[in-house]
């Protein structure tokens, strides 16, 4: 690896909650330097190797999760970075934001049974196009979800496109790795837990890899994704 540290930008909207968790988790990787970037800024001030839009309740999830993020200056910088091919990951509320600012197709609706769910889920890696998934060895990861609006929805045409372009990155699965209705916690269409954009550099996912990453965590599956993008 070349000498200068990899800079990973972590975006902090008002109401973002998981920025420090992400900084701690990604910061563990060798040569990585994480920096918090306020959503009130309109640039990253310098080159970044990758961008994390962390979970939380930006602007309280008011109106619709992620909806108000559109008004923040940082979105312009996000569009530019996405175009330039920078690896971007949106986790949970970050996924909702990336959908609302149209960097990713689809939208996240309220969970099928209307309630918040905090629970570990199985995730089957369906596509490794995202730099965050390219180096993930196992086909099944165990990572928790924590959301009320995690039901992925898109039109039938969009779904067909996602399939055709290999944009479905992660699906919910059971302990044996089987994708099924029973293993789908929130009613997502196609059991989708994560998708990428057409180019593959922008990934959105509802589960939280940063919560299975620290030395004292019982599970460490999240580290696969962190190491993948930092490799």
């Amino acid at each position: 690896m070349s000498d200068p540290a990899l800079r990973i930008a972590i975006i902090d909207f008002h109401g973002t909650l998981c920025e420090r968790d992400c900084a701690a988790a990604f910061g563990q990787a060798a040569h990585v330097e994480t920096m918090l970037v306020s959503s009130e800024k309109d640039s990253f001030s310098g080159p970044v190797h990758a961008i994390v839009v962390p979970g939380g309740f930006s602007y309280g999830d008011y109106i619709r999760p992620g909806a108000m993020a559109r008004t923040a200056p940082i979105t312009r910088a996000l569009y530019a970075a996405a175009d330039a091919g920078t690896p971007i990951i949106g986790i949970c509320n970050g996924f909702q934001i990336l959908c609302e600012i149209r960097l990713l197709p689809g939208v996240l609706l309220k969970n099928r049974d209307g309630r918040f769910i905090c629970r570990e889920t199985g995730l089957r890696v369906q596509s490794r196009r995202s730099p965050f998934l390219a180096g993930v060895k196992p086909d099944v990861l165990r990572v928790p979800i924590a959301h009320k609006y995690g039901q992925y929805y898109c039109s039938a045409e969009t779904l067909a496109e996602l399939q055709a372009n290999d944009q479905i990155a992660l699906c919910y699965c059971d302990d044996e790795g089987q994708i099924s209705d029973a293993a789908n916690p929130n009613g997502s269409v196609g059991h989708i837990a994560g998708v990428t954009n057409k180019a593959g550099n922008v990934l959105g996912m509802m589960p939280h890899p940063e919560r299975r990453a620290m030395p004292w965590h019982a599970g460490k599956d999240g580290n696969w994704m962190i190491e993948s993008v930092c490799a």
Partner: protein
Amino acid sequence: MNILIDQILNQRQKDTLLAGLGRDPTPAEVAMVSAMWSEHCGYTHSRHFLKTLPREGEHVLAGPGENAGIIRLHDQLAVAFKIESHNHPSAVVPYQGAATGVGGILRDIFTMGSEPIALMNSLHFDIRDHRGKWIAEHVVDGIADYGNCTGIPTVGGEYSSYPWYVDNPLVNVVCAGLLKPEQVLKASTAQVGDRVLYFGNKTGRDGIAGAIFASLNLTEATREQKSAVQVGDPFMGKLIMQATLELIRAGVPSAMQDMGAAGITCSTSEIAHNSGLGITVELDAVPVRAPGITAEEILLSESQERMLATVPPDRLAQAEEILNRYPLDYAWIGVIEETPDMVVRFQNETVASAPLDLLIDGCPVEDYADLTDDVLRAGKERASDLSGIAGTGRPLLGGKPSTNPEPPTLSALLEVYAETSHYASARHIYEQFDYEINQRTLGGPGDDHTLMYDAASERTVAFTLHSRSPWTLQHAYRGTRAVLAAAWRRSIAAGAYPLGLSNCLNYPSADRRETMIDFGGTTLAMKEFCEALGIPVTGGNVSFYNESEVGAIAPTPVFVLVGDSVLGPDRYRYAGAEGQLYLLGTPDLTAGDVYALWRLRQDGTLSGATVPTVDFAQEHQVGQALLDLYRAYPGAFAMRDVGKGGVFKRILEQFARADRDVVLNDDLPAALPDVLLGEGPCTYLLFVPDATTLEWPAALQAAGIRPLGRVTAGDGKLLAPAVELDLLKYRARADKSLEPHWIDQLELAP
């Protein structure tokens, strides 16, 4: 407004006010006094008893009187924690009532400069009917939405359903935060000339007179006082938390206080008075939301998410620079004065000018000198006839003890165990809470213990939350002793010698002598516990008047213990090993909650139920020995206190596996129902895997630790002399969600 004042100020209070002022009070003064002298703010009925509690200790950095208690855990770390009730609002608007409860307790914690790390809650309903279920569902939703949105994990709690909570649910919320011992910021350190900073949400008419509301019994009339309802704004809650912590880290405020009960009145007067000074408040400067709002309304509004700070004159610009970064309102609304008066100005007039001594300490309090310790220890026995619970004479349970009660069979008891909501999986509750955010949760809901890990100091903080209304109903003094001992055992099992105690005392009407005997009995028991074990009371909350036309609650003290745990990330977690079970103590079926629930089903009484008699010195000795054992054999064995649901619940949760049997020995220390479902002093269950050899310290041998049985290869059975139980069947039923118990039909029938 005037109607409320007449309801609230009694003759004695009116006389005190007139004498103190030496003139007729202004409307604003009456408004302020009505709030400050309410039970909620003035502790008029409880002060007599609360002042007897031990509050000093080498670990105490802040005690009662501050927004929250603070305990020094070790050199690098202190913990702020507090419990608070939101029972009355939750009975009327369960979602908002519970949500604003969480908001309020969070503010108490970050106001002191500590970063909130954990929320917990203690919830008690009567879910027999539609209304009770509706309340339960909405309370959990409200707690979830507020806590989740602010990013503080909700890591544990307890719930129960008993008939004495009909119409009067209990919603107690706990928050804990961490800070460096030198970072503590108090509400008593303002200086003359400091400017008074208001920030957060605007002031509206919502929640007017909430403090008064909490001091009244719930009647149809109070239910109609809709202006008392507050709406929570968790996004603003998160913003003011961040802004507050940032201000404190920058060293800007000289003192800080959140606006909780009685809003601006309480926060401004207390911050000045606690600092030994006075204050002038300019109400015109307060950011308001409602056009035409009056001075009295501004003074009493309980609009949520508002903070108060005092800032030295040379720090104003720095404060503004920080606050400008957040989408919130702020204003300079006054100044700290030398003269110890509270002066309020509105529209170029002085609308109030009263000595703070009068406003805060002048509150006439009830004196209960006749309730001596002997009277309290004798207390009031209740068990066989609950029909007039707490003396209301209302037919709540309607039961008369059956004259010749058959002792229950094990299968009848297990039937109760399998069917009631008490032992159904709490997943339905806690999966609605984000319990993992912030990466600190070492033991969360569904785990054996509630443990939060601090990576910086590599230390673990243990939290214990406990209440047992069947015990405290039967006898407040003895029941409270038993609850405290049970909470102590939970803390020991979590590896922590408790360093501080916080409490929420939920009682029926304070206007009845019987309530005050119960209340006094509870505080006496608490005092004895704290003195015996050297644990200070660092704060708490009192909620009276939990009764309505329909019924009155059982006295329900809820306790929170905090300690520095010896358990860490490497603690023992059961993963299928074979090994030995050991039992300490002698459980008694009639003291356990399964028996109480069975009995309530039989005839609506608790006759035959008992309260364990505890000896704190003995609990202390055993507890210390167990902590030593944890230290001597780190990560080598598992330990649980034997509490609700008895040994059976622990076996079911841990060892019910398709490839394991639990085989109990022939020489059980008591009858099987006692062993499996009973409780008693100093009772713990330990599991030692075969790979580990332990040497029992003398203290435990003296306490009578004995082998109970083995966990061994098998197919999911519990085998005991002449008994075979299918654990997997019970496990499957216990794993079933609470949901069907909680949700049922709307009352849509004509």
